[in-house]
């Protein structure tokens, strides 16, 4: 297994794979995106209670899911780069942090917009929105720490430690916010949760989640490739690529 990771870790090998991979990933992303949007906005019937405003779910839930998913990727790639000293995972972590932060911001803003028709106010101290807000602070802390170092390698390792501490704290934060919010408002029936929706509403949601995931992979691959070029600028294969 170690041989596979090390081989996968070599920048040149990763560069070639990523070129091949990103073609497919972008195709899947576009297809799912169009399918999900069409299904969500047009086909799915209006919700009996909230009418059409529930369609925001097709953007809010995938974004919220992606924000947590990318933080997990930060932590795991950090752990891998700490244990096996692989350069690729450093780059992947550093590159996916801004994407994760943008998804968290997206989840927050769509959640707030969805709150308006539901509760009449934009920002509501709902448990999920609050833990999403704290997750945004964790992201901003991670990005700020990464940019505070000038040596890229040390920045990646420091970020790895922060991400690992963060990942341990996320369940604690989530549970404490749940505890706190149920205490103050009582169990609000939040429509943010995935309501037990039947098929026609669920399929577009799954399509959108896949679309967001492939979108993240495609963007991360592009950024990783440019970072690899920057890293390996004095090695021969990069000169060959840049030559033509």
């Amino acid at each position, binding site marked *: 297994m170690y041989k596979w990771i090390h081989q996968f870790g070599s920048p040149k090998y990763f560069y070639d794979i990523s070129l091949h991979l990103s073609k497919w990933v972008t195709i899947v992303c576009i297809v799912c995106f169009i399918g999900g949007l069409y299904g969500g906005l047009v086909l799915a019937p209006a919700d009996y209670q909230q009418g059409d405003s529930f369609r925001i779910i097709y953007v809010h839930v995938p974004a919220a899911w992606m924000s947590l998913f990318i933080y997990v990727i930060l932590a795991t790639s950090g752990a891998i780069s700490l244990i096996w*000293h692989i*350069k690729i995972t450093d780059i992947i972590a550093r590159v996916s942090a801004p994407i994760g932060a943008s998804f968290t911001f997206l989840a927050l803003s769509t959640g707030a917009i969805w709150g308006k028709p539901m509760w009449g106010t934009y920002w509501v101290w709902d448990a999920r929105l609050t833990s999403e807000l704290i997750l945004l602070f964790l992201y901003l802390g991670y990005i700020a720490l990464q940019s505070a170092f*000038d*040596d890229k*390698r040390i920045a990646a390792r420091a970020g790895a430690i922060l991400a690992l501490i963060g990942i341990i704290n996320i369940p604690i934060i989530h549970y404490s916010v749940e505890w706190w919010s149920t205490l103050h408002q009582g169990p609000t029936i939040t429509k943010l949760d995935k309501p037990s929706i039947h098929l026609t509403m669920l399929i577009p949601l799954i399509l959108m989640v896949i679309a967001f995931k492939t979108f993240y992979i495609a963007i991360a691959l592009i950024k990783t490739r440019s970072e690899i070029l920057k890293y390996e600028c004095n090695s021969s294969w990069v000169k060959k690529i840049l030559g033509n």
Partner: protein
Amino acid sequence: MSKFSINNLECIRQNNILFKGLNLTMEDGGLVQINGANGSGKSSLLQICAGLIQITTGEVLWNNININQHRYEFQSNILYIGHTNAIKATLTAEENMTIIHSLTGSKSKINYSTILKKIGMSGMNKIFTYNMSAGQKRRLGLTRLFMTKSKLWFLDEPFNALDKEGKKIIENLIINHCAKGGITIFTTHQKMEIDGYPLQSIHLRNNNV
């Protein structure tokens, strides 16, 4: 019979290569001087040897085992003195020395006055460090050499801020240590007059050895 060796060491600072493919093997009684212009990576090389800086290419071996495998066994055999002399300003000379002594982990009682006399600062036990001159602070930092029992010494510019007489004391100390079978690697940019002792020297120009 212990052995300290480095294989094809490479150090990159802000992606310009300080040194590449550096090999070194030292047995008991070895003495190595690293000299080179400022910023040519002397201190980085020393810190890599001591295990302070983690490296990705090349390896540092103690008794043919990579130091990351047996870090604490390696660290109980080394003494590292950097540019800063790692003494606390608000403590007296003696308090600083008690802490240094307890960090070495040796049980034996140590008479601080004799050590201070040997280093040329006799009678300054109760003086606070912030009242001392730079040379005296450097000497207080170098009292570690008297209290340690580790075999491998890494000294970063041991002679700066030392007057003629201080330099003499430290040179004799290094020679005795190596004569008794110890290994010493030190950096200096002045020419060192250790006469009568075989001296390996590594000269670091900007990007090759």
